[in-house]
């Protein structure tokens, strides 16, 4: 089963921690706010996307059941 992610843009504090951990899955807009590039990153990128979730200092990123 592939893991699906969601982000809460209003919680984002623009630390860029997600982009550092998983640049293929997350980006930032011009205000630094997270942009989710792939809701379902797939098996190759899943572990780095989970790293990004854990690295975020504002609990912006969640997995969806």
């Amino acid at each position, binding site marked *: 089963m592939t893991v699906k992610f969601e982000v809460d843009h209003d*919680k984002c504090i623009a*630390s*860029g921690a997600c982009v550092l951990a998983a640049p293929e899955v997350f980006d930032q807009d011009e*205000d*630094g706010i997270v942009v989710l590039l792939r809701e379902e990153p797939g098996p190759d990128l899943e572990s780095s996307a989970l790293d990004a979730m*854990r*690295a975020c*200092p504002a*609990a912006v990123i*969640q997995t969806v059941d």
Partner: protein
Amino acid sequence: MPELQSIVVVGAGAAGLHTAEALRVAGFAGRLTIVGEEADVACDRPPLSKQVLAGEWTPDRAELFSTSRLEQLNADWRLGVRAARLDLAGRTVELASGEHLSYGALVVATGMFARTLPHQPPLRHLHTLRTLQDALTLRTSLLRSREARRLVVIGAGFLGLEVAATARNLGCDVTVVEPQPGPPLASRLGSLAASRILAAHEDRDVRIITGQGVGRIVGDGDVQAVELTSGACLRADTVLMAIGAVPAISWLQGSGLDLSNGVVCDEFCHAGSGVWAVGDVASWPHPVLGARVRLEHRMNASEQARVVAANIMGAAVPFAPIPFFWTDHYDDKVQVLGWFAPEGEAEVVESSADGRSFVQTFSADGDLVGALLWNAPRRLATLRARLTDARRPMPDTSRTRS
């Protein structure tokens, strides 16, 4: 090292939860017990002075971990109970309930509690702000009546000034009192950013009084006024004491651990005898900085958690972060990476034409040591890379863990 059977994490805030998660990710499959003093898992603290106090978020929005993420910790929870005592030799934590928890490794992540004025008796509408409950009761005080909108904040640090901004937006009449002279936050951010923050508050008619101490807070059940050491008296309907926080380590007194600066650890964040410390309580010799530090930042809690979990599992990684924190005042977002060097040089390296954003770098002895971004979050990645490159080789990290 014999295989670890059980780990006890004391503290269910950001530092504790992130360490627990990192331990599971690192492959720890044994018994993991998490002790938390609050009745629930702590919420994330940075939003408390901002969105939660403002009423923009319901409290559940400030949760640290989703339910599924908590479940994946596969932990035994002891919530609503304090750790009372540590038996270092016997590797046992005694809880206030009387329960004894034995451990192979112990993680101290008890964080801090808010400092209060000495000998100050409790009064209604006199607050500190550390927990979710604190934020909700402060909000109730601020909004209780149209005729009771005067807030006095004691302490012009990050917390005090963030609350001042939020309360002003709620329509309160706000005065901030700071015993230190000079512009607030200048020692933490440099004079440029500090003066901009000060101006943002003054533009909104927040009064900031510096260089005056607080004598006492008076009231007759309800708080009524703040008396300054100068003799002046500030009428108040609500008072917030934002005068810093103290490591919550009294339960470790007499255990034999060095508590001279929080929990004193080595560069691996090991305090000795299988005890590790994470987050606000932990001080350790930063291997690049060459000095002992204790960081009270949200980002530090999760970064340190990851390193400590790896080290508990047998690695020997010195903890050498580039610190990061942020603070919000009205529409301005300030981010700081690395270290501000009060004696060093500060230079504005870029700024927007309208002056709404700028980037400042901090140097010490010619080396880049930090950067401040004023409404310029997109520049973080570049500056983080520059700071990483600017690091000198570590003098001695080859020492192995005892």
